[in-house]
């Protein structure tokens, strides 16, 4: 792709991310009526859940790129998978932060083991933090790319399995479960706001992903240039 086309795309993506996020935040704060039982704190929900879904999307994208790497052995997928995991962890941390604020308002303390999604993100955070430990302890090259790719695939398999495990654990350790399942009880206005915020978060992730990827590619290019000139 010619660079000018790529630049336009980048600007388009960044622009739409900004617009969607602003719209979503405005809708969340001013347009959508107070939810009957939860009142104002329900507003956190419009950021918390889209961020969580975006984090899942990033980890899924990283696994897809990892699969492409193992399939075609093209090293550029390693950089893309790595950047996607990095994005996933950033949004994962945001999920934990907004989730604990949600827990504080809804149930009175910053960490609640009953909130299944929160616990799942804690497990995923530990898992993907180890991804970076793995990458830092292997020299850059085809071997590190393979190891990271296999680990990223394990991650995406771990998400559903852990979700199931946490649900099973909930019956064991504390039967009372605090869940705010999104699906059914959303009115039309709430659902549109949620969709706008979700679109905003996904495009934001896409924008940051592209920027970081470009930055890493420029780094690699500069290294080659430096070698050529020395």
């Amino acid at each position, binding site marked *: 792709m010619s660079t000018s086309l790529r630049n336009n795309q980048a600007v388009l993506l960044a622009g739409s991310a900004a617009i969607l996020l602003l719209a979503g935040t405005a809708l969340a704060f001013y347009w959508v009526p107070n939810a009957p039982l939860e009142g104002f704190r329900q507003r956190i929900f419009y950021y918390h859940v889209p961020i969580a879904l975006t984090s899942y999307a990033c980890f899924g994208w990283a696994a897809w790129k990892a699969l492409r790497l193992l399939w075609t052995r093209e090293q550029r997928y390693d950089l893309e998978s790595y950047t996607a995991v990095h994005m996933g962890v950033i949004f994962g941390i945001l999920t934990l932060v907004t989730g604990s604020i949600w827990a504080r308002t809804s149930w009175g303390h910053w960490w609640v083991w009953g909130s299944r999604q929160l616990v799942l993100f804690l497990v995923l955070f530990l898992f993907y933090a180890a991804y970076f430990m793995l990458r830092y302890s292997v020299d850059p*090259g085809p071997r590190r790319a393979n190891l990271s790719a296999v680990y990223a695939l394990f991650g995406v398999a771990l998400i559903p399995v852990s979700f199931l495990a946490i649900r099973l654990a909930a019956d064991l350790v504390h039967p009372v479960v605090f869940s705010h399942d999104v699906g059914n009880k959303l009115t039309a206005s709430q659902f549109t706001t949620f969709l706008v915020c979700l679109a905003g978060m996904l495009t934001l992730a896409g924008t940051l992903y592209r920027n970081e990827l470009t930055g890493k590619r420029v780094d690699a290019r500069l290294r080659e240039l430096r070698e050529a000139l020395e």
Partner: protein
Amino acid sequence: MTVIRARGLGRDFGAKRVLRGLDFDVARGGFLVVTGPNGAGKSTLLSLCAGLLAPTSGELRVDAERAEIGYLAHEPLVYRELTPLENLDLYGRLYRIPERRERIGMLLERFGLWEARHERAESFSRGMTQRLALCRALLHEPRLLLLDEPYAGLDEAGTELLDDELQTLARERTLVVATHEPERVGRLATSTLALA
């Protein structure tokens, strides 16, 4: 018919560039001698040809199945707690060698290890370990032989023995030998590659 074809072959380890822009061919039955100071990348080149490492730039085509490649590295690639018989028996099974026992016995005899066949490899001297590694590399009668410093650690008798062995192998096999003393195998070589 070329067995190995390299075009612009390169390999980096992180930021360190070990090999860059190598072009060479090894024909069937050829004998390539690879020379160069320590750290020039001789072992890396042999690992690339063996398929243990992937090139980071350029292209390398090796026209030999895994079962047809014999690889001798600096390390012997044998278990120290096992005896020569046990080590070669394991490799014999993995390489599916017919009449495994006879083949192993003959090789141990030829390389002077028959008496030590029940001793653990960890008690071996540097030279005996090298002979065991040679047995392991030649066990499955490979078509393509990649030998990294084959003479390392061999005593007078061992060196003579390896000279004869290379003599017979050079006739109908393809060899790539990395060595510090190219004159030792000079007369057998069909081509040479000097790594800076």
